[in-house]
């Protein structure tokens, strides 16, 4: 009985937190300011990217879901490479390790398990053709960004909840100019059932930090709050949905995705996302377009998983591929 009450309380608390976070995410922005360091908002996990960057489907890791670190069955390493449609590349390396449990919980509850993750992310903007104020050619310049940090997650909390937090150091450079800052990610996830089907939900707060300042202007980070769900509708068919709001400019993103896994080693994915952007005339205007489409595939062979994602865009097509190994 005590166990049941405790579980109910955790579920209620989680729902309250979820509602609070959703309300926070849906609140109008204080000022419509375009954020800087937007590379931090890009997914490094190809599975999550193909499914619309749903936080409920992000892989456990520093740049994915820190709440999933506690549930790792073993050590996990991931290499990721992306070619961005707007030009530039995105490369990441992550290492996650389980730290073990803290003993059985009260009343025979499952033991809490901890996990630690660390990683490095590099965004390369390539070389820019330099021009002076008089239109004349100047020396070529390069631009790149780095983020590195560590995350800690715990799973097996009452109600089957998992939670995690990650701290990242960020450095950006454009030509001879540089700036540095830090950001925090946090996540909370738990199991669910929808019409008797196994499901999961997740809440995430990403890239909360003091902003990036190169010269005199401090640009807000792409801080976002997101809520996502996923459930297995049938054998080999998983559906997902998520809403994410970027706090500095109020831009929202609503997405739905599907993953088909006809066999044990192959999965096909697709998603569509619509953007809800604040405007001068209409507070929120739905902007559908081909840029919201994403797709991909994944293959699993033993302890190796290879995933690929593709997203067409007005500025160009983006490709993301990553290799994950569990050992």
């Amino acid at each position, binding site marked *: 009985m005590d166990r049941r009450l405790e579980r109910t309380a955790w579920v209620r608390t989680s729902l309250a937190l979820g509602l609070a976070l959703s309300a926070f995410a849906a609140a109008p922005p204080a000022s419509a*300011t*375009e*954020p*800087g*360091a*937007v*590379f931090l*908002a*890009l997914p490094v996990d190809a599975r999550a990217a193909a499914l619309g960057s749903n936080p409920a489907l992000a892989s456990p890791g520093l740049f994915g879901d820190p709440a999933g670190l506690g549930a790792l069955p073993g050590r996990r390493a991931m290499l990721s490479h992306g070619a*961005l*449609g*707007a*030009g*530039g590349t995105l490369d990441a390396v992550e290492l996650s390790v389980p730290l073990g449990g803290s003993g059985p919980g009260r009343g025979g509850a499952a033991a809490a398990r901890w996990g630690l993750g660390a990683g490095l992310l590099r*965004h390369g*903007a*390539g070389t*820019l*053709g*330099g*021009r*002076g*104020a*008089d*239109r*004349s050619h100047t020396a070529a*310049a390069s*631009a790149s960004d780095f983020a590195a940090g560590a995350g800690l997650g715990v799973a097996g909390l009452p109600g089957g909840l998992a939670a995690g937090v990650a701290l990242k150091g960020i450095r*950006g450079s*454009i*030509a001879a*100019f540089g*700036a540095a800052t830090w950001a925090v990610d946090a996540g909370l996830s738990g199991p669910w059932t929808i019409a008797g089907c196994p499901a999961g939900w997740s809440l995430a707060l990403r890239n909360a930090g003091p902003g*990036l300042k*190169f*010269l*005199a*202007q401090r*640009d*807000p980070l*792409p801080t976002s709050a997101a809520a996502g769900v996923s459930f297995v509708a049938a054998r080999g068919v998983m559906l997902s949905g998520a809403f994410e709001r970027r706090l500095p400019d109020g*831009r929202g993103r609503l997405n739905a995705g599907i993953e088909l896994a006809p066999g044990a080693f192959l999965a096909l994915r697709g998603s569509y996302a619509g*953007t809800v952007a604040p405007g001068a005339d209409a507070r929120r205007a739905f902007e559908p377009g081909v*840029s919201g489409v994403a797709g991909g595939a994944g293959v699993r062979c033993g302890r190796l998983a290879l995933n690929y994602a593709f*997203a067409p*865009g*007005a*500025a*160009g097509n*983006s490709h993301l591929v990553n290799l994950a190994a569990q050992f």
Partner: protein
Amino acid sequence: MAAKSARRWFAGGGTPAVPAALSAALAFAPLPGARADGLAGDSALVAAPAAARARQYLDVERRRLELRERVLSAPAAPAPGEAEAAPQPTGSARPSGGPDPAFKLGEAYCFPNPAASGAVPTFHVEAGLADSVRVELYDAAGERVAELSASGPPGVVEDGQGPRYAYELRWEGPIASGVYAFVARAEKDGVTLTASGRCAVVR
């Protein structure tokens, strides 16, 4: 008599007796051998007999009229904004030295690049004379952050490679530091020309 009057006038003594037509012509019709400062022309004029000066005047006036006729009959480059009404000379048909109004893509870039401190990023798009030109800007995530449109005719830019028509669109307002991709689209008669590039902003 006329020679004496002219001599007195150039020497500063009394009112000249130069015919009105000759006075008007002298202002733009230098005599043979005249220098840029006009001294040699004045000297030649003073020294020449009246009959010879009259012949020289008539000769110069004839050549001036011939030159004027040639200039007026030559095809002129259309003024900015008159592209639809004016003929569209291309290649060697356009007057030498003038900007080419043909709808074709030239250079498209951002300057200054990087645009540091308070410098306003300006997008330079060469497409001759177009119906419309717009520039879309995307951040690193591929999301459109701004769209600029040319609101008037192109300017003529002379940067050492000959005069060219160019649309220049300024990106003003608060801009976050970063590298942005831009896509420039010029349209004319249903044809679209596209160019792309990247622009860095440091604030």
